[in-house]
């Protein structure tokens, strides 16, 4: 692997990797069971540099902002490298966001370049705010011949034969602007520096070293901070290979494990649970005798790997399980949301350790990770090397807000010094999560202090961001809260959103209002929907600028009613 201390920027490190392992495979892309792309590091360079050259011709230079909106595929990485090569700042946007929200973030980040997949571009072109899109250059991938691109250029034809000039960037300069939330109200654009990423990559690969021959299966979108680091920067700076699968269908994921002999994979809890359900079902369908033998072997494996994983032993004891995963799988990584300990233990007992971690975009992705020394299903692991974690204002049980200090912490929120100073206090990042550090240095999480929820798909939802969907409701005022913020509980599962409705004097919450509420709720993406409503009969406390004092309102509600007052929509 590269010694990342020697490099100043992601572009410089990636460039060195492409020279270091020219004949190793770095990237494969499969659409279902059809392999579409297979590139060595040399071929990756040959694909990216003509794009970089054309981007330079279009004046993408040091500090120019360029966004990518694409599903999980090889052109994402090729484009990202070309942007870094030119000294640009990458703005990776979530392709699953509605087009209107993508347009808001494109405007907020002031991008000059946009690289986007055709079907997503089509949706953007059909959206009201499209005419205000300020990007100078738009490149569209995979557009059918003859398609109307609304003035955009075809990615596949956007290249130049001129040798591009590598543009260096400093460690403290911005590498990416990553939105952790904020499409509805106040965008949170985390400005992450080259140092943030290089330090994070060093910390992660010191625990889980990648090397040539290692194959990482990428099913999370690369705009996801975890996949960007563990499915791009990490493997590339170690000479490993990334396999992009353009579908989340379980049958093709299973096929990819076997076909590509996958070594590592990152998933969100929802996908891990789905794999668990599938395996449990297959085990249950075994004839009784075979099931008894299997259970005995699983118990034996558990007993023999209690101190640390033993891959060779587990593969010998449980060959049918490991063969189903291709026979080379060393570990899963899971993050983005809380994972139930029983699920982690289930896989560990099969000899498939799950690196359970905790992090956030503001901290440069990963803060803590299980090191399997020994495996602990009840924690999110220990802080990565170089990352300090402390618990602020701990209560009698040692539980308080998790604060983090390290070179991986973002430099700021884009154009928001006020929110930056509230979030980074004396160089400590206040995460808003509640946790405790146990006697062995493992972090355990107990809930949130902040008003937000995380879905099992790993999506962070801030109530303020979805309130625009309810503007114009026939009430005097309304406010959306995370239920666990109104009524704190020590849990990080089944988090829900609640809308508080204050009717006009003399009016009640009637059928028409509820129908309107339900219809608006349906229009939201499924994971952003509110769970229920709470009728409230007092005026909301407001600031001088007529904004709701959310903390104060939450306190009043908490003092007056409990969860049972919420009516499910």
């Amino acid at each position, binding site marked *: 692997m590269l010694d990342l201390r020697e490099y100043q920027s992601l572009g410089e490190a990636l460039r060195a990797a492409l020279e270091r392992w020219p004949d190793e495979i770095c990237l494969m892309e499969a659409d279902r069971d059809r392999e579409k792309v297979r590139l060595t590091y040399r071929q990756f360079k040959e694909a990216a540099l003509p794009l970089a050259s054309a981007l330079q011709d279009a004046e993408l230079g040091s500090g120019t902002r360029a966004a990518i909106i694409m599903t999980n595929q090889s052109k994402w990485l090729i484009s990202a490298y070309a942007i870094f090569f030119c000294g640009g700042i990458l703005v990776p946007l979530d*392709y699953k966001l509605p087009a209107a929200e993508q347009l808001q973030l494109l405007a907020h980040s002031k991008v000059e370049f946009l690289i986007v997949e055709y079907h997503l571009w089509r949706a953007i072109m059909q959206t009201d705010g499209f005419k205000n899109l300020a990007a100078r250059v738009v490149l569209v991938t995979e557009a059918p011949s003859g398609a109307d691109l609304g003035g955009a250029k075809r990615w596949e034809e956007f290249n130049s034969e001129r040798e591009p000039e590598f543009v260096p960037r400093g460690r403290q300069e911005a590498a990416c602007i990553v939105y952790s939330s904020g499409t509805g109200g106040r965008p949170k654009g985390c400005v992450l520096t080259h140092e943030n990423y290089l330090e994070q990559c060093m910390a992660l690969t010191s625990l889980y070293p990648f090397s040539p021959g290692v194959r990482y299966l990428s099913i999370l979108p690369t705009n996801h901070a975890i996949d960007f680091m563990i499915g791009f920067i990490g493997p590339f700076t170690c000479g490993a290979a990334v396999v992009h699968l*353009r579908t*989340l*269908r*379980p049958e093709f994921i299973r096929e990819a494990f076997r076909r590509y002999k996958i070594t590592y994979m990152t998933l969100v809890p929802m996908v891990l649970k*789905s794999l668990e359900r599938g395996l449990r079902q297959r085990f249950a369908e075994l004839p009784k005798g075979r099931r008894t033998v299997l259970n005995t072997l699983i118990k034996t494996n558990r007993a023999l790997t209690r101190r640390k994983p033993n891959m060779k032993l587990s593969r010998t004891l449980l060959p049918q399980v490991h063969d189903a995963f291709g026979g080379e799988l060393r570990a899963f990584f899971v993050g983005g949301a809380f994972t139930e300990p029983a699920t982690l233990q289930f896989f560990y007992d099969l000899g498939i350790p799950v690196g359970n971690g905790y992090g956030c975009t503001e901290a440069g992705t990963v803060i803590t990770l299980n090191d399997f020394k020994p495996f602990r299903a009840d924690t999110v692991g220990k802080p990565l090397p170089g990352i300090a974690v402390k618990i602020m204002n701990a209560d009698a049980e040692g539980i308080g807000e998790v604060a983090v200090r390290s070179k991986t912490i973002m430099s700021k929120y884009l154009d928001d010094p006020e929110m930056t100073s509230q979030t980074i206090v004396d160089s400590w990042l206040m995460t808003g999560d509640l946790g405790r550090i146990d006697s062995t240095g493992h972090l355990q999480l107990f809930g949130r202090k902040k008003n937000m929820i995380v879905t099992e798909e790993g999506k962070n939802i801030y109530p303020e961001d979805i309130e625009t969907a309810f503007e114009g409701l026939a009430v005097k005022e309304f406010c959306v809260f995370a239920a666990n913020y109104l009524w704190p509980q020590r849990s990080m599962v089944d988090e829900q959103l609640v809308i508080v409705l204050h009717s006009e004097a003399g009016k009640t919450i009637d059928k028409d209002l509820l129908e309107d509420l339900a219809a608006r709720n*349906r229009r939201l993406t*499924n994971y952003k929907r509110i769970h229920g409503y709470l009728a409230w009969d007092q005026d909301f406390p407001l600031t001088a600028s007529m904004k709701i004092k959310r903390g104060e309102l939450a306190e009043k509600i908490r003092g007056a009613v409990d969860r049972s007052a919420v009516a499910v929509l």
Partner: protein
Amino acid sequence: MSSLQSTTEEVMRLAAEHFKVPPEQLTPDDDFFKKLGINSLQALDLLTRIEHHFKIELPDYELQGVSDFRTLAERIQTRL
């Protein structure tokens, strides 16, 4: 070619069969995530079932932003 109405009905029938709910409980404008109590991965399972039935290929992204049977049927209809 099937009409949108018949495609919608077929989609609801397949969903009812796949997730074992009485078909008469489903209507075209139902939010299938809520009505069937499923997550996005389980919805992809339904997509696979639909592909086999209609003998078409639906990329995962066709499910993006779709949560009711009628809109899903519209997406299918463009590929029939």
